[in-house]
C-alpha cells in the first residue's frame, strides 16, 4: 500500500494491482508443480513395484542403450541452462537475448524428444518391446512417456510464448509467463534426473 501511496491516481493503482496479480499466478504454479511431483511420484512407485515383472520379455539390461540416454540427458540439462540464460536476458531487459535463448531451448528440447522417440521406435520395431509386452514395459513407457509428453507440451508453450514476446515485449505479464515456463522446464529436468537414475542407471546395473 505504501507503494501505491507514493504514486497518484488510477495508474498507480493499476500498476500495483497488476504486479500482485502476476505474483499470485507464479505462486499458484508452484502449487501446481507440487501436484505434478505427486503425479510423477505415483508413476515412479508403479515402476519400482513392476520393474522386475518382465514376463519373459526383454529386460532393462537388454533394452537400454546408455550412449543415447546419456546424450539425451546432456541435451536436456543444457536446455535447462539455456532457459536460465533466457531469464537472465529478461532480467537485463534484453528482449533479443531472451527470445534467442528461448529458441535455443526449444531446439534442444525438440532434439531431446526426437531422440527419445527414436529410442522408443527402436525398442518397438527391433526388440519387439511394446507397452503390452510386460508390466515392466507398461510402466517404463508410461513413466518415460509422461515425462516426454510434458516436455512436448512445454515446447508448444514456449513457441507460443516467443510469439507473444515478439508482439508485446517484456511486460509484467510476459515476465511472469517466462518465469513460469522456466520453472516448469527446470522441474522437468529434475524429474529427468530421477528417470535417468531410477530407470536407466539402476536398470543396467
Amino acid at each position, binding site marked *: 500500500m505504501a507503494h501505491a501511496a507514493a504514486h497518484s491516481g*488510477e495508474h498507480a*493503482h*493499476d500498476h500495483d*494491482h497488476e504486479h500482485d496479480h502476476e505474483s*499470485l*499466478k507464479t*505462486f*499458484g504454479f508452484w*502449487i*501446481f508443480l*507440487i*501436484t*505434478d511431483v*505427486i*503425479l510423477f511420484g*505415483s*508413476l515412479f*512407485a*508403479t515402476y519400482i*513395484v*513392476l520393474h522386475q*515383472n*518382465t*514376463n519373459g520379455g526383454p529386460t532393462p539390461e537388454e533394452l537400454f542403450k546408455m550412449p543415447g540416454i546419456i546424450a539425451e540427458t546432456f541435451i536436456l540439462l543444457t536446455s535447462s541452462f539455456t532457459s536460465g540464460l533466457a531469464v537472465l536476458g529478461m532480467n537485463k531487459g534484453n528482449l533479443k537475448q531472451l527470445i534467442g535463448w528461448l529458441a535455443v531451448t526449444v531446439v534442444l528440447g525438440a532434439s531431446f524428444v526426437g531422440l527419445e522417440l527414436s529410442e522408443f521406435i527402436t525398442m518397438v520395431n527391433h526388440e519387439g518391446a511394446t*507397452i*503390452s*509386452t*510386460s*508390466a*515392466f514395459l*507398461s*510402466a517404463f*513407457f*508410461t513413466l518415460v512417456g509422461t515425462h516426454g509428453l510434458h516436455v512436448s507440451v512445454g515446447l*508448444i*508453450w514456449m513457441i*507460443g*510464448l516467443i*510469439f*507473444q514476446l515478439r508482439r*508485446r515485449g517484456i511486460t509484467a*505479464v510476459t515476465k511472469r*509467463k517466462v518465469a513460469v515456463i522456466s520453472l516448469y522446464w527446470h522441474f522437468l529436468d529434475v524429474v529427468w534426473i530421477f528417470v535417468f537414475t531410477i530407470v536407466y542407471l539402476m536398470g543396467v546395473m
Partner: protein
Amino acid sequence: MLDKIKQFASEFFVTGDPLILGAQVSIGLSMVAMIFVLTYFRKWGWLWKEWLTSVDHKRIGIMYIICSIMMLFRGGVDALLMRLQLAMPNSEFLQADHYNQIFTTHGVIMILFMAMPLMFGLFNIVVPLQIGARDVAYPFLNSLSFWMFFWGAMLFNVSFVIGGSPDAGWLSYPPLSELSHSPGVGQNFYIWGIQISGIGSLATGINFIVTILKMRAPGMKLMKMPMFTWSVFSSCIMIIFAFPILTVTLALLFLDRFLGAHFFTLDGGGNPMMYINLIWMWGHPEVYIVVVPAFGIFSEIVSTFSKKKLFGYKSMVFAMLIISLLSFFTWAHHFFTMGSGANVNAFFAISTMLIAIPTGAKVFNWLFTMYRGKIRFTTPMMWTVAFIPCFVIGGMTGVLLSVAPADFQFHNSYFLIAHFHQVLIGGVAFGYFAGLYYWWPKMFGFKLNEHLGKWAFWLWNIGFYVCFMPQYFLGLDGMTRRTYTYDFDMGWGPLNLVSTVGGFLMGVGFIFQVWQIAHSIKFREADVNGDPWEGRTLEWSIPSPAPIYNFAVLPQVSEADAWWEEKEKRAASGKSAAPIVYEPIHMPKNSAIPFIISTFWFFAGFGFVWGWMWLTIPALIGVGICMIARSFSYDTDYYIPADEVKRTEAALKGAKL
C-alpha cells in the same frame, strides 16, 4: 446397411430393461421441454451471458449446487431401487447385472458428483466472502473447474442410457474392471467421467489454497480466519496431494484396457494389488476431503446460533491439519484381509485409530461452544445438533472396524455399509444441508421456509436411523455388501424390510426439501439486511445476494469474528459504518473458453470410451487450440467505475428499507 445400423444402435443404446427405457423416454422429453422453454422465453442469450460464461465465483457456486442436487436425486433413486430389491427375500425386482450397475453408480455419484460439487459450491460461495476478497485467485480456472466437473458428470451419467453403466463397484477394482472381465464400455465411462471431473477438482484445490493464502482482507492473519475457511484450506491441501494419484491410477487402468498394457492385469506381470493401493491412497483422503469442510460448517453454525465465540479455536485448527496429515497414512485399512501381514496391518490400524483423537477434540469443542450459549434451534442448528450423536456412533463403529483382527469379521459386511453411511450421511450430507440452509439467504437473498425445513429434518433423521441401524445387525448376521438377493431362510428379511422403509423416509425428506425450496421461492421471505442469522463472519456484513464485486470497500480485520466485533463496536459507540470513499474495482471478464474447452473434453472422453479416434483426436486438438487462444488473449479484465459501485451500493441499501 439397415442391419448394420440396427446392430450399432443395439450396442450403442441400452435396451431391454423397462426401467431404463422409461428413463430414456423421460430424459428425451425433459430435454425437449428445456429447449422449448429456453427458446419460447428467449433465454438462450441470458443463459450464455449470465451463467455459462460467467467467472463470478457466486454464480459458479450456485451452478455447482444445482448440479449436485440433481445428482443427489439420481443417486437417491439408485439407493431406493437397491433397497426395493433387497426389501424381500428372493426378490426379482431388478436384474442381477442391473443391480451391479446401480450400486456402482450410486457410490460414484454420491461421492464424486454429489458431495464434491456441493462442497465446491459452498467453497465458491462462502470462502471469498468470508475472507473479505472480491474473487477467488483464478476466476477463469474456477469456471474451467466447474465445467470440467459438469461435463465429466454428464459423461458418467450418459452411460446409463448409452453403452451401459459401469458395474465393477465404486472403486472399480481390477481384475474385474479389466478388459478380460468387463469387456463393455461401462468401465471406460467410469474412467473418463471421473478423470475429466477430477482434473477440475484438482484445479479447485490449487485455486482455493492460493485464494486463502494470498487474498485475505488486510489484518486477517491465518489464526484469525473463520473456521470454515480453515476447513476448506485443510481439505484443499488433501486435494492437491490426493487427486494426482487418482489421475495416474485411472490413466493406468485405461492404458490396460485401451493399449493392452499390463499394470493391473492377472497376466503379463501385472499386479492388481497395485491398483488397490493406489486407489485408496486417493480414496481414503477423499473421504476426509469431503467431511472436513462439514466440520467447518458446523463450527460456524454452532458459534452463530449459540451466540458465542467458538470454543478452542486453536485446537480446532490443529485438529483439522492433523486429520489432513493422518488421512494419508490410513489407506491400507481398506484391505486388512488381503494379506499385508500383521505389522503392516498394525501400523495402519493404529494410524486409523489416531484419527479419532482430533475428531473427538472437535466434538468436545462444539459441545463446549453450546454450553451456556443462547441456543436458537433454526434448521441449520438442528442439523448440526443431530450430526453430533450420529457422527459419534459412526466414529465408534469406525474404530471397531479399525481393529485389524476384528475387521476380518466385519470386512465387506453390512456392518461396514452402515458405518460409512453413518459418517458420510451423518457427517457430510447433514453438514452440507446445514451449510446450504445457513448460506442460502446469502446466495439468493431469501430464507428457506423453516417449517418445511423442520419436517424434512425429522424425516431425514428418523429415516436415517430406521435405514442404517438394522444394517449393523445384518452385517453381524453375515449379510455381505453387494448382495443381490438372499434366501428366505437366511432370516435377513425383516431387518432388510425395516431398512428399506427407512430409505424411503429419507426419500420423503428429500421431497420435503424440494417442496421447501419451491415454496420459499414463491413466498419469498426476503433477507433485508444481509445478516439474517446475526452472523459473526464477514460474509454477513454485505448485502444478500452479494453484488458482483462482493465488497465495495475491502474490510479491515482485527478479530477472528470480524463482523461480530464490528457490530459490537458500532453498538458501543452508537455510530453506524464510517463514510465510504468508492474506488474503481478491478474484475475479470466473462469467458466462453472454459465452457468450450470442457465440451471438447467431453467429446474426447466419449471418443475414448468407444475407441473412436476420429472423434477424440479433433476434440483434443480443440482443447489445445482453446488453451493457446487463452494464452494469447491479454484483454481479460476490466474496471467497474467508482460511480457505478456507488450507484449499486445505494440501490442495495435502498432495497433494505
